[in-house]
């Protein structure tokens, strides 16, 4: 929803008089930025830059990076499919009881990720009520597989997409859709030609947030999927494990994660937020 208002304001700026910012706003804004940026700077300062290329190109690191990118991409697609549908239902449906659905959808934001992982384990694990049926009927066991990594990431990331998209849908409202419908557009055409372009910035930032959250996922993954190179050991899990013996190596790997995340957010977010211009 902020994304939409930003985009709107920007296009409006060309015609209207620019309203300056209150000057005091820079102080808390600066503190906020410092709180996030300084620890990252601390990481860079502490890093052993000479040994960095060797650590980052090691077999374990490349396997983890590949797995992280692959699972985060699949999780983001699942978030789009299921979370996107959920957001539309939450924003547009008038069905009773939906007020109770939203807090549940937001739970993964509050739940410590490791608890989320345990919840998944107690549900879809070998002794969980759903997992036992899966094993009995289909011979499928989920823990310790790449599928478990994807499920854990989707679990923690989905609220980000739902919140962003639902906000965008509510901000956009139904006025334009109604007009298009009265002019004879079919529901499919309304969705494609009216609704989607209006919510695209919100959807875009939701997707970026979900991808970034999946990329950094640790707690739910270690609890539900375990850690094995090439199968379940994503980059955050490798960082945690390396830290035991080689803090410099762990920092180098963290920087690799930071770089990937920064590239994703810096490149994708503004474009997504501004929509297709």
């Amino acid at each position, binding site marked *: 929803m902020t994304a939409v208002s930003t985009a709107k304001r920007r296009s409006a700026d060309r015609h209207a008089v620019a309203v300056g910012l209150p000057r005091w706003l820079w102080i808390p804004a600066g503190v906020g930025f410092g709180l996030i940026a300084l620890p990252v700077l601390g990481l860079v300062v502490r890093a052993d830059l000479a040994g960095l290329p060797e650590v980052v190109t090691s077999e374990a690191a490349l396997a983890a990076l590949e797995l992280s990118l692959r699972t985060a991409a699949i999780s983001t697609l699942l978030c789009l499919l299921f979370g996107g549908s959920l957001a539309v239902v939450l924003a547009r449906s008038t069905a009773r009881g939906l007020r109770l659905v939203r807090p549940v959808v937001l739970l993964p934001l509050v739940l410590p990720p490791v608890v989320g992982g345990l919840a998944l*384990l107690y549900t879809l694990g070998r*002794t969980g009520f759903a997992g036992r049926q899966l094993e009995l009927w289909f011979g499928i066991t989920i823990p310790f597989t790449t599928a478990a990594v994807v499920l854990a990431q989707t679990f923690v990331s989905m609220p980000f997409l739902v919140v962003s998209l639902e906000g965008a849908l509510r901000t956009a409202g139904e006025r334009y859709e109604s007009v298009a419908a009265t002019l004879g557009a079919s529901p499919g055409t309304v969705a494609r030609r009216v609704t989607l372009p209006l919510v695209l910035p919100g959807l875009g930032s939701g997707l970026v947030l979900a991808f970034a959250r999946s990329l950094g996922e640790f707690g739910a993954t270690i609890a539900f999927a375990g850690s094995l190179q090439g199968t379940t050991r994503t980059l955050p899990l490798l960082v945690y494990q390396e830290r*035991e*013996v080689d803090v410099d190596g762990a920092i180098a790997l963290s920087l690799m994660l930071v770089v990937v995340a920064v590239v994703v957010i810096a490149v994708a977010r503004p474009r997504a937020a501004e929509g297709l211009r």
Partner: protein
Amino acid sequence: MTKLAAVLAAAVLVLAGCGGASGSPGARTLTVSAAASLTNVFGELKQRFETDNPGVDVRINFAGSSDLASQILAGAPSGVFASANTAQMDKVVAAGLVAGVPQIFVTNRLQIAVVPGNPTNIQGFADLARPDVTLVVCAPQVPCGAATEKVEQAAGVRLDPVSEEPNVRAVLSKVTSGNADAGLVYVTDVASADGRVDGVGFPESENALNSYPIAVLTTAAEPELARMFVELVRSEDGQRVLKAAGFGTP
């Protein structure tokens, strides 16, 4: 605006105050950094120490030994360090933060934790390599994983685990939750699981005994208290508590 800032500042101060020291004023405090595997026994020893020394408040920071060593090296105030392996203690010694020489106070050995009743019929180390056994072990970077590798070599058995966990408690929880058939943990972990797993011992564990060193730190605020706590751990009473939890004597 200044009003809002004042309210914010007051809120921050109040919140920060909540995290401050509790307990009676003038009480003496001893901070102990202890390996996670010592959680139960050191909890018991702490109570004994506080009973024997009225007015003393013992605070124990339980974590993985490498985390504790990093914290101590980074200047965390602590009086005693009890590590689950010598490598992490050596780091602290090398930094000149240990007063005197670290003493080995207990040993610990690996045991196979299996689902209660041992439905997969695991009788020894070699059974862990069976393809029908879902096995979980520690990652080689942590002490229990290093010990696992040593035993593998000694036994001439190559394991094929489904997961290498970051600590021994994570291995145990994969077995207690029934998601793994077997896990390699310490004897003390099996003992602390209260019947939620069964333990299967194996002679090859002799090849990878883990020694636990303890030492007084130069950063101790109350060196005398720190020394007394180390004495209690190494006393007959202390050793009895440790032995009851499954630890071996050095």
